[in-house]
């Protein structure tokens, strides 16, 4: 499993860290990859810190242990960094994408992130408020993620996510449109150093 990529999503209960991992896995599957998506089951209270995980590979994935050295980390809630080491276990050449209005330089200094790790930031909360009408940062972070890692074809991912959302929100087409807009904006607005 040479091309195995492990991913960790940090969020707070209710922000959609689990859903984001599932949506991403589904999109990766549609592109022909083998996938895993699983949440960390613990204190699943609204607002409590939660994490979810992905494994993506072009070969069957046999590992059924937790993910402890993710090469990609996505942080849905910037306030989590006060209580959690979001870079824990990351390799030197990892990628971290944080939902914040701040620029990558400021975040790197603030969290003392080692030089090898690439830092990306995007104001996913702001984007989701404007496009969906509520603070739901998970779908825009998908867009930022695809831009930052180049792991999936953006158009295919967008199409696949749209299909999934249309199924989930059969009677709320405005939710689907808002989410798609949010993903596109985050894809275009994500910043690197």
């Amino acid at each position, binding site marked *: 499993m040479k091309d195995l990529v492990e991913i960790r999503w940090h969020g707070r209960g209710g922000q959609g860290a689990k859903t984001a991992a*599932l949506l991403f896995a589904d999109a990766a599957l549609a592109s022909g*990859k083998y*996938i895993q998506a*699983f949440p960390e089951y613990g204190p699943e209270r609204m607002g409590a810190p939660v994490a979810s995980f992905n494994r993506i590979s072009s070969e069957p*994935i046999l*590992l*059924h242990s937790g993910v402890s050295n993710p090469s990609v980390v996505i942080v849905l809630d910037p306030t989590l960094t006060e209580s959690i080491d979001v870079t824990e276990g990351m390799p030197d050449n990892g990628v971290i994408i944080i939902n914040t209005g701040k620029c990558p330089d400021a975040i790197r200094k603030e969290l003392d992130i080692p030089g090898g790790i690439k830092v990306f930031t995007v104001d996913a909360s702001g984007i989701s408020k404007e496009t969906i009408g509520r603070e739901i940062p998970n779908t825009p972070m998908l867009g930022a993620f695809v831009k930052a890692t180049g792991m999936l074809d953006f158009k295919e991912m967008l199409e696949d996510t749209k299909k999934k959302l249309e199924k989930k929100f059969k009677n709320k087409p405005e939710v689907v449109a808002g989410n798609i807009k949010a993903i596109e904006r985050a894809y275009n607005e994500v910043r690197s150093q």
Partner: protein
Amino acid sequence: MAKSNILARTGNEAMAEAMRQVNPDVVAAYPITPATEIVQIFASFVADGLVDTEFVPVESEHSAMSACIGAASAGGRVMTGTSSQGLALMAEMLYIAAGLRLPIVLSDVNRALSSPINIHCDHSDTMMVRDSGWIQIFSENAQEAYDNMVQAVKIAEAVKLPVVVTTDGFIISHGMERIEILDDAEVKKFIGDYKPEHYLLNFEKPITVGALDLTDYYFEHKRQEIEAMKASTPVIIAVGSEFGKKTGRSYGLFEKYKMEDAEAVMIAMGSTAGTAKVKIDELRAKGLKAGLLKPRVFRPFPKEEIADALKGAKAVAVMDRSDSMNAQEGPLCLEVKAALYDKAANKPVLNYVYGLGGREIKPEDIGTVFDDLFEASKGKEKPGVSYLGVRE
């Protein structure tokens, strides 16, 4: 493989999907973490009219299995799902389902038993009911969970025994993976129509179900159940091979991974087997001869086959995800050691099953055992297991 047959599904979704395709006559179930979704998703299939199933929401797992037993006795194809404390609460009825030879299929999402209260994976629940007369099939991942559920229906109905298919709680039940499914029509064809031989709703041939059976015939009926369990082995193999011809995914009693020349062999069931394979690949890359034997069928336990498969091994580690509380080893290790003992023992240990249902044990029965023992001590071959006092 058509793209529409490749899906991202959790273990629970995969099992529910298999149940949808089987389209059983009756599902009676009570939700419990981490198996809740199986029941919930299946209930939505019923509500959406995707299945013809009579769904019976009950007030407990004891009632769930009771309703399953009633429906299966009536002649229906019946399925359910549970976990942990739910399986424990079913225990009384599990024995009854097996004794009545009802081909019910149950998905059990493996979870620890209380106390202390814990919702996460271990195999204590399935192990607790390992002697209940249910065929037990373990799954490594969501794909196997789906495949095993489909095969379980065919196996159960062929041998007239209930089958439990397990997945590891949360690790598989809530982990989304890539799975390949069959078309609905293919599943239907594979399992065929269920034509029970004896059933309550057959007014041409009325039967009694669950009659009192004291010292006069209980032992003989139990013996038949034991023989049915033994006879299920070739059926399980045949169904696994037929499934393989259809899908490219063949199944046997256990899987051998890099066992050909393995010196250090691990035995592990469920999701840990996958993680072990990754580690074994790493060890092999370093030139170390590591291998894995993954039991799929725990009941009936493939004793001789496993002993044969371990012939070349120099050391064996048995991974038990449950404990037998001061039995000599965990339940899987006890089975493996016993299987190996018979192949290499310096003295025969004979097993006599006796006195079931109050069958009297007489001095002459004890005498027969000693006759056997003295003959065996002189090197005469004797059966490993005998049923003492049963009428043949």
